[in-house]
Each structure stands twice: as structure tokens, then as C-alpha cells.
């Protein structure tokens, strides 16, 4: 919106520009007020949860949500963390998410490499199959996957979740990485081939280092996706002690039925890992989101 005209300008034009600046300033002050109000309203549910988590349910029930808090307490966090076992659930979430991430990124870089670098008859059909798979509704997979994990003796293990997350996300990861790897010029590999590098060495020592930016963006995005999964956790796990924090929160909700301060405290703690990833890796997160949506 800035039209920078740095040439010598006659005074009349300067005056007009100044007036335009003033108008813009007035306009932007209005814009800031509008945006600030909108942002606060937008975040109100989170602000409400935050305030609630420091209060007692007795106080809220008697005086209502909009009363001025009489006292702040940390007991809700303590209760969520220890009694409701959110600490344990969070550990489980990491135990499921980290191996899934490693699995899907490693396997999808293999398939992406094959699809990006080689010409073969089934190349495009396989690529299209991966793309189509990313959009499947999970419900079409629930029953067979449930049956298969039972048959393999994997029901009620975290490994079953690692497997399905790795497999399902292969489609999206392959799609993104294949398109990224296509942009790497082939000459780099020709030189390596002349030097006698084998196929796998070219993949591991040339393509993977070059793909690190895409891998980082994918890892950030996939971390939040897998960490936030709820459906597969309730399908494949029975033991409460194994559940990730998403499913754990549902248990907590049942346990602390009407004690909203503890529920909101648990919900806020549960968001911390993905929030931290988002704050520190924001650039990668945004890149990841836009990566998948076409070129």
C-alpha cells in the first residue's frame, strides 16, 4: 500500500501526500481498534478457560462466571496433573507421536524419492493413489484396522497406533516430499553417479540433506496432527494407562464431571506441547500448512 515516491516533489503534491497520510493514520487507528476488539472476542473461549482454571468451582457456581475472582488457586493444575494423570497421558502422547513421526518421514522419503527420481510405468498411478488416500474418511478404515490389530495381537498397544499413524500419513508426506524432491536438479545426481555412488547412497547423502527444509516443515505439522489424534486412540486402546492426552481428557471429563476448573486446567496443560512447537517452529508450521495445498 506504500507508494514510495522519493523524487523531488512540488509542495502542493507534498501537502496532498501529507493529507493522505493523515487519512491513512486515522484509518489505521480504526483498524487497530477493530482488530484488537475482534482478537479479544476471538480468544475469549481460551481466556475464559484460562481464568477458570485458576478459580474454584464453588466460587463460580455461586457468583457466576463474570464475577471478580476472590482468590487464585493452583490446586486445579495439581489435581489435573496428578489425580487425573494428565502427566502420564502426555508421556503417552509423546511415546506415540515421536516414533510415528520418524516412521512416516523415513518411509515417505523412500517412496517420494522413487516417485520423484525414476521413470517407471507405475509411477503416476502410485503417486495418485497416495494423493487420493490422504482424503479418505477414517471411518472407512476403522473396522478392518481394528480387526487386523486384534488378529496380530496388537490391540491395546501403543505400537498399533504408531503403525496406523505412520501408514495413514504416508500419503500426505509422500505427496509433499515428492513434489519437493522434483525441484532438485538431476545434474547433482549425475555427478555423484560418475563418482560411483550407489542408489541408496545418493538418496541418503544427497537427497535427504537437500530435503531438510521440507522434512522440517512436515515434521512440525505432522507432530500436531498425530499428537492431536483422538479417534484412533479410542478405537485401538482400552487401557486408560496407555491413552494419549486427547483420549485422556475424555476420561478426565467423565471423572471430574462438573468440576470445570480442573477440566479446563487439564485442557490447557494438554495444549502446551503443540503450542510450544507452534511458537518455536512457527515458520515451519505455516510452511507445512501451505505445502500440502498445491504448488
Amino acid at each position, binding site marked *: 500500500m506504500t507508494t514510495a515516491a522519493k523524487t523531488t516533489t512540488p509542495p502542493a503534491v507534498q501537502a496532498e501526500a501529507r493529507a493522505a497520510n493523515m487519512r491513512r493514520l486515522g484509518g489505521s487507528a480504526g*483498524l487497530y481498534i477493530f*482488530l484488537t476488539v475482534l*482478537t479479544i472476542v*476471538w480468544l*475469549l*473461549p*481460551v481466556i*475464559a478457560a484460562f481464568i477458570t482454571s485458576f478459580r474454584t468451582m464453588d466460587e463460580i*457456581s455461586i457468583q*457466576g462466571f*463474570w464475577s471478580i475472582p476472590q482468590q487464585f488457586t493452583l490446586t486445579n493444575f495439581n489435581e489435573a496433573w496428578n489425580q487425573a494423570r494428565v502427566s502420564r497421558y502426555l508421556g503417552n502422547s509423546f511415546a506415540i507421536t515421536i516414533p510415528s513421526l520418524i516412521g512416516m518421514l523415513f*518411509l515417505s522419503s*523412500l*517412496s517420494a524419492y*522413487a*516417485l520423484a*527420481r*525414476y521413470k*517407471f*510405468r507405475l509411477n*503416476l498411478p*502410485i503417486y*495418485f*493413489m497416495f*494423493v*487420493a*488416500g490422504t*482424503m*479418505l*474418511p*477414517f*471411518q*472407512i*478404515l*476403522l*473396522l*478392518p484396522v481394528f480387526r487386523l490389530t486384534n488378529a496380530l495381537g496388537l490391540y491395546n498397544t501403543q505400537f498399533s497406533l504408531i*503403525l496406523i499413524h*505412520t501408514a495413514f500419513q*504416508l*500419503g500426505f508426506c509422500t505427496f509433499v516430499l515428492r513434489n519437493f524432491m522434483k525441484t532438485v536438479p538431476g545434474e547433482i545426481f549425475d555427478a555423484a553417479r560418475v563418482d560411483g555412488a550407489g*542408489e541408496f547412497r545418493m538418496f541418503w547423502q544427497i537427497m535427504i540433506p537437500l530435503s531438510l527444509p521440507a522434512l522440517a516443515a512436515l515434521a512440525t505439522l505432522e507432530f*500436531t496432527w498425530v499428537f*492431536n489424534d*483422538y*479417534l484412533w486412540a479410542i478405537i485401538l486402546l482400552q487401557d486408560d494407562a496407555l491413552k494419549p492426552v*486427547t483420549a485422556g*481428557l*475424555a476420561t478426565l*471429563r467423565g471423572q471430574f464431571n462438573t468440576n470445570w476448573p480442573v477440566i479446563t486446567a487439564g*485442557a490447557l496443560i494438554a*495444549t502446551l506441547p*503443540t503450542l510450544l*512447537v*507452534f511458537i518455536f517452529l512457527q515458520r515451519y508450521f*505455516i510452511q507445512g*500448512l*501451505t505445502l500440502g*495445498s*498445491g504448488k
Partner: protein
Amino acid sequence: MAATLKAGRLPGASSKRRRMNWTPYLFLLLPLALYFVWIIAPTFYTIYLSLTNWNGVDPIPGFVGLQNFERLFTKDRTFSEALLNNVRWLVVFITIPTTLGLGLAMIFNNEMRGGRWYKISFYSPLVMSLPVIGLIWGWVYHPRAGLLNGFLQAIGVADPPGWLGDRDLAIWAVIIAAVWRQVGYVMVLYLAGLKNIDPSFVDAARVDGANRWQLFRHVILPLLAPVTTIIVVISIIDSLRAFDLVSIMTRGAQDTQVLANFMYIEAFNNYRMGYGAAIAVVLFAISLIFIGFYLSRVIRDELEY
């Protein structure tokens, strides 16, 4: 495997057939095997299960033909309710977040002081899990002590609605929570799209004397059309996947049933797995329309090379 057939004309091939290059298949072996076992085969297996009356226990499901579908479409009122709710969800999803997200993206596309913090506020719901969002909004909608009714009572509404407990409002209350999350996502995609617009188009239009609205309507919006298409497809797929919020906020009670949760309840709570599979197949069939549309665009992009 048929690649060997057309290879005879290559010079230097020792026999009349060129040796097939197995390298890409070696790279694909592990990922494809996993994908087949956990994704592709299960899709077809569910289609088979939808033709049975499997209860989850019998070793061999009993074949019943199209009975499950017949019952779904003619007798089951919960099914039509769920279908209607998915349509509502879909219509809201492709209109409201798209408009709001585009508006916000147009604002934040300009350099502005502190813009980063405003943007972060709008996409922070994206990092929250849906169960967390469901709980937080469940508290907002709490009939007595919640934020919303507390506010309504404060401004003098004597008898505020019960929101999630109200049959007419519950589904909309759930959809609003979903929209709250989706807006940030759409905004991110539009911001990326706006960044890719060649500034010379915008400058040219300005030189021609286009005002802001004309610039938006006749230059920027058409240039964003590909992004809009992707956003609409993503929104539709997401609205068909709607499960977590309903499961957490209402469990499908108060007329809030959606297909994904209905399938879960039938299959895993009522042990009517064959019937559940039929619901999954309906969901899949609807998704297939949009998957096909999206895929045709990807295919077109590939063949243009």
C-alpha cells in the same frame, strides 16, 4: 511389470528384452507394503463388511447383500438426521470460514505493526486438539455458569438457551466451535496465495484507476481462484470427517448426530459392525466425489509437464 514388453528397441540390450529397472520398486517396497495392508486393503474390506451382518465376534461374517443400505435409506431416522447435519456442517464450512479467512488475510497481507501478533491469535486454535476445543467450548456453552449465558444474563436475558442441551441449537453450537478453528487455517492458505500474486497485476490495475473494491473483485479474487478451490475441497473433506467435537461435546445426543460419530456408535458401542461398515461406505461414497475432483486437478497438473 509390463515395462519389459516395449523395451526391445533399446540398443545395447544383451537379449531382445531390456532388463527392468527394479531400483524404484526397492525404494517403494516398504512404504507400499505398509500402505496396502493398513489403508488400501481395509478400504475394500469395509465395502465387503457393509454387505454382511457381522457383529464383531463371528469368525465369518454372514452375507446379507444390500440389506444394510436398504435399512439406512428407508428406515433409519438417525441416519437421515446425521446426513442432514453433515450437509449443514458442510454448507457452513464452505461459506463462513472461507469469507472470514479471506477477509482477515486481506487485512494481514499489508505490512502493519504488530500484525504478527494478531495473526498468531487467529491461528492459535489450529494447534489445539479437537477434544480440547470441545471441552473449552463446552464450558463456554455451560447453561448456568458458562461464559455465554453469564453474559446474556448480565445484559438482561431472563431465560437464556441451554445451547448444547437444546435440540434446535446444539448442532449449530458444535459447528461454531469447528468454524472457530477453521478460520485460522483458511487465513493461512489465503495469505500464502496472496503472497504468490504477481504485484505487477495489482499495479497495472491501479494505474488503470481501479478502486480498492474493483481491485479486489476483478484482479485479486480471480487470481486466488485456485486457492479457493483447494480451500473448498479441504473444507468439504473436513466437514465429512467431523467426529471429535460431536463425540466430546454431545456424543451425538440432542439431534447432533453426524455420519462419522453414528458409524462409531453403531459399530463400536452397539456391535453392529456390518451396519457400521455400511455407514462408512456411504461416507466414503460422498467423499469420493470430492476426492475424484481433487485428483483430476492433480492429474491435470502432472500431465501439463
